């Protein structure tokens, strides 16, 4: 008899147990950890893993732990699609962070929409959110803002004739399209508009071509080592004109690589790179400093803007879930209408027509002073 009672008691107890261990919120991630875009995906993956562990240490979201399902796409669209389908159809993840590159984001965009799964892309291309798809967002600032900030400064400096170089990667192409589109509006002519190979080991011939075209300034758009090579080669052949770089240059690793040649280079950067020099009142200061301290303490390498995208995407997702609870439809709407989210890339103000949420204010012109990043005053 008492055996029966014990079984009944056990049965009664089980549901309680079931409730005690809450079912985790699955978050999918698609980063190109290896392959040609490793310097985008690797920091993004490390950042996301760090944030998920930190969050779970503090009890997860409203008590439910976050389970991260991370896949390395190696920057190839066919893998991104295969993994995206796994995340959406099998793992039934709540949301997907990534992919790292524009090519992959365009490939998985339709899948996320069809699978009604929130996608927070870390890539920059405008076409990801233009035209808008309800479930597709991106957390990287538009290339056009970076170009506009640069062109505004060039106009102020009276520069009208520049030599433009870009690499044959997704990043380079994104920048090239915006530069070509916006240059006429700022009265700037591209005396040279050349694309070089991302594996370029020496670009002296390239910069010689710029010297031949006697340009007033150089603008380079790439994120590979080539961006440091361009700066060095230009200075080595005696080109003293001002050099402008893309927001890809906001990575201390490349400044160190360019060494003294990087002095005075002007580039747009999200405030993450100049965190320590931000005035106390700047709302982004606490966020970027928290990220920088945590990342550099844990991984012992300089923080990068691209890692910041993963930090922002996860932050936006967590804030939305905390606001409206783990309901897909409500969270999507929460993200779409989220205002004033302070991220490393800037202050996000999403809207049904703007799934990027950043404005030109996301960028601040910076320069390099004796090997350190510094806001460009004046």
């Amino acid at each position, binding site marked *: 008899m008492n055996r029966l009672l014990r079984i009944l008691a056990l049965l009664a107890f089980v549901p309680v147990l079931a409730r005690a261990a809450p079912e985790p919120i699955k978050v999918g991630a698609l980063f190109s950890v290896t392959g040609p875009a490793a310097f985008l995906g690797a920091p993004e993956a490390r950042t996301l893993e760090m944030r998920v562990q930190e969050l779970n240490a503090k009890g997860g979201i409203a008590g439910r732990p976050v389970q991260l399902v991370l896949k390395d796409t190696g920057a190839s669209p066919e893998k991104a699609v295969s993994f995206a389908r796994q995340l959406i159809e099998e793992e039934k993840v709540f949301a997907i962070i990534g992919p790292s590159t524009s090519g992959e984001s*365009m*490939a998985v965009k339709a899948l996320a929409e069809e699978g009604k799964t929130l996608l927070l892309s870390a890539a920059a291309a405008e076409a990801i959110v233009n035209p808008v798809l309800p479930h597709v967002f991106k957390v990287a600032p538009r290339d056009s803002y970076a170009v506009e900030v640069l062109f505004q400064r060039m106009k102020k400096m009276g520069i009208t004739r520049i030599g433009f170089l870009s690499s044959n990667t997704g990043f380079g*192409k994104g920048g090239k399209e915006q530069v070509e589109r916006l240059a006429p509006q700022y009265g700037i002519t591209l005396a040279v508009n050349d694309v070089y190979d*991302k594996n370029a080991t020496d670009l002296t011939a390239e910069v010689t071509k710029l010297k031949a075209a006697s340009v007033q300034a150089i603008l380079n758009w790439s994120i590979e080592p080539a961006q440091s090579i361009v700066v060095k080669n230009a200075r080595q052949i005696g080109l003293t004109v001002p050099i402008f770089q893309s927001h890809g240059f906001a990575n201390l690793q490349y400044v160190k690589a360019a060494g003294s040649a990087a002095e005075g280079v002007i580039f747009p950067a999200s405030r993450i790179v100049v965190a320590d020099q931000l005035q106390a009142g700047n709302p982004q200061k606490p966020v970027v400093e928290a990220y920088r301290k945590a990342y550099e303490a844990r991984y012992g390498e300089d923080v990068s803007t691209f890692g910041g995208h993963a930090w922002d995407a996860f932050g936006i997702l967590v804030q939305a879930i905390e606001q409206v609870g783990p309901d897909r439809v409500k969270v999507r709407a929460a993200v779409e209408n989220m205002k004033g989210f302070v991220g490393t890339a800037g202050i996000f103000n999403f809207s049904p027509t703007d799934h990027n949420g950043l404005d030109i204010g996301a960028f601040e012109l910076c320069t390099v002073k004796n090997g350190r990043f510094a806001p460009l005053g004046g």
Partner: protein
Amino acid sequence: MTRPGLPAPARVALLAVAVVAVQLATQASGRGFYLTQLTMTGYYALVVLGLSLLMGYAGQISLGQAGFFAIGGYAAAFLSTIDVSAQRALPAFALATRMGLLVARPDLYGGTTLGVNPWAGLVLGVGLASGVAFAVGVPVLRLRGHYLAMATLAFGTIVSAVAVGTQRLGAADGISGVPPFPILPGVRIGGGSADRVANYYLAWGLVALAMLLLGNLVRSRTGRALRAIHGAEDAARAMGVDAARMKVRVFVLAAAMAAAAGVLLTHYVGGIGPSEASVMKSVRYVAMVAVGGMGSLWGALSAAAVLEFLSLRGVFGAHDDAVFGGILVLVMLFAPDGILSFRARGIVEKLRGRPARPGEGT
């Protein structure tokens, strides 16, 4: 028959049974989503089968197979995503529309575009790849050994460089938004989870067809001539085999199969990127043929099915390339005739110290 084992049609029937069994198993176990990776694996298997015929049977190495895949894929992607609705009125375009060459299609954002009919894309894609294969093959197949390896590697790298460097091909981002390919009434390559089972059977149906055709070919007069070329090219020529022409024809056939796979997989995935034309992809195809055994279609098919499926499932994680590199080395060191032909007889002889004779590939 001169060759041990079942004739090709019987084996293909076995394959068909296996294909259906796998589908039912995934359905029963609630893992229907495996079909996505299995479908993609099926298309990649077509490339490996073509390469197995070229490398395993005719003995001609190619490090450029991904180049032909990309030519097919990019042709289909480019033709199916261009929007010529603006020129709709022009006589040529109007005629093409009436002939069904151009088809209107709703795009993702509610608008309609007028693009090229996917069937035309398939024909043009495979035709272009075959033409390029002929043009490259005639001079290059006179080379042997590492010269041939390097020439095909150079060809593959050229295709990759052009794909990455061309603005109209989406440069580094590649081309996305490729519409599904309506192939039979109610069956279309691509589309979402609703079409999953149909796509699976379509892909593996093509694989079964390829196995039947190549299985027959390998056992036919032409197949024998190919293996003769691999064995001793001079002797084959003395027996009346026009080795040069035969090698080019197999090179073009393998390229056409790779291009067809490129077209169909691009429609299934909905896009293609320059990563499909990379040297590493070509090396993976070579690895799968090597694992399956030089001169063994069934070996190549099983190697492709297992390795590609695991890779697409992300089982190898960030070490995907390392796994294929490692496999390539291990197979070439210990089982140059492939794991499947490494039968007990081979092992026994190795233990007894006598070199194992080259296993007879089926």
